[in-house]
């Protein structure tokens, strides 16, 4: 049985003048006909399924619909059309370092994040030491979070996320942060998790990383699914070719 199944998932995204305008502005624009709302398909007919232990890499240029797709998979958004089936728990880390609170200490933030990911307090008490050691932030434990560098922040975020044992783990641009040493450590951790049966979805702009780690690739372009399959090197090569062509025609 597949652990995650998407069938013809399409998502219509709306954007436009309704954001951040006041009531006055809203009425004026409505009356003068200057009120614009744009609808577009952020994802169109995406179909794929993942098995236990798969590591899916999603590739595509900016605006290809990667983040929107992840939001649907994690349940923050609903597909406009099509359906999605999840057979297990999901831990999603989208844009890791946001959602932390600068005023709280590192420890408090770790607990808050852990709670958001659905851990229990007991679990956090037991694993906090492990988390902080993995992130190499022992001496920062009681410092306000805002004093941390951005690399440290994402190190903490990754450490918390990777200690869960969810059935599906979603990582959005997580591994491209942190210094070389930490990157190596986190890649190792990911391999370990895959061996343990966690299905992982990874978005990264580093094609090398995806090619090295992933067992399946999904290639999106402007919301459309170009390719999906386990021919990692083949798809990556075609994607690279596609990028080159695009650069040339510019």
């Amino acid at each position, binding site marked *: 049985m597949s652990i995650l199944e998407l069938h013809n998932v399409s998502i219509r995204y709306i954007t436009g003048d309704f954001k951040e305008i006041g009531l006055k502005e*809203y009425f004026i624009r409505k009356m003068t006909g200057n009120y614009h709302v744009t609808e577009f398909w952020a994802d169109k007919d995406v179909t794929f399924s993942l098995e236990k232990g798969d590591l899916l890499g999603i590739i595509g240029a900016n605006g290809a619909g990667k983040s929107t797709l992840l939001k649907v998979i994690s349940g923050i958004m609903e597909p406009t059309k099509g359906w999605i089936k999840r057979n297990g728990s999901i831990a*999603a880390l989208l844009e890791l370092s946001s959602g932390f609170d600068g005023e709280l200490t590192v420890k*408090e933030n770790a607990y808050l994040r852990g709670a958001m990911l659905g851990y229990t307090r007991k679990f956090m008490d037991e694993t906090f030491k492990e988390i902080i050691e993995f992130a190499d932030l022992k001496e920062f434990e009681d410092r306000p979070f805002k004093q941390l560098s951005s690399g440290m922040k994402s190190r903490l975020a990754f450490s918390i996320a990777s200690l869960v044992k969810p059935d599906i783990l979603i990582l959005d641009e997580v591994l491209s942060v942190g210094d070389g040493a930490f990157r190596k450590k986190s890649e190792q951790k990911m391999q370990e998790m895959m061996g343990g049966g966690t299905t992982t979805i990874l978005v990264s702009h580093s094609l090398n990383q995806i090619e090295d780690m992933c067992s399946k690739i999904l290639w999106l372009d402007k919301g459309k699914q170009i390719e999906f399959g386990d021919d990692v090197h083949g798809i990556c090569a075609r994607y690279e070719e596609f990028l080159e062509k695009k650069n040339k025609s510019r």
Partner: protein
Amino acid sequence: MIKKLEKYSFLFQELVKRDFKKKYKRTVIGMGWSILSPLLQLLVMRLIFTQFFGRNMEHYTTYLFCGNLVFSYFSESTGQGMSSLMGNSSIFTKVNIPKYLFLFSKNVQSLINFGLVLIVFFIFCILDGITFTWKFILLIYPIVSLLLFNIGVGLILSALFVFFRDIQYLWSIFTQLLMYLSAIFYSIDSYNERMQELFLLNPIYLHIRYFRKIVIDGTIPSVWFHLLMIADVAIVLGIGCWMYKKYNTKFLYYV
């Protein structure tokens, strides 16, 4: 539902902790402010209005305090709750958790403040020579009702606030007007009967009146009065829940 509550109880505790810490950060007397502010209001009202409204009224201080107690809880809870969803937009657009938890967390804070002021209220009652009867237990009814009413209004406001930021200014004007309409420092006896009935349309007035009936008059409001309060609560809670349900996955378009 219960399973869900259990699942999110840890998150809820952490959110409450966070909100507490942020609210009282860098303030010298911390929670003292929350008690001090309604007390100062009470003091000013007592000094000013006794001349005009309180001369032929027994227990005018308690009369004022009943109004102040209920109204300050209402305005604090709804005012603070309004920004609860928007203020956590960086969280709910990234993690799938129940969005009402943010509001509930704020409400815990104002409920605790209310509890502290309530204790001061009882102390004032003793000083004002009020006799305590078993009927005081019935005060649980307006308290629970007010809590639910505040949650309902908070749900509506926090959802609207995501769509229109102006709502905060509108709301502060509205609460100010509502304060004058809630008979906090005057008595409605001098109005004719029809006018007096109109006051019953104001849910806040209902709660204030319940307090006064029990504490000052020592009488229990009628069954109809109870039902009227439930109806108000049901309406705002219903609208609030409906909005959260309807826009659950759509809020993120607006932030």
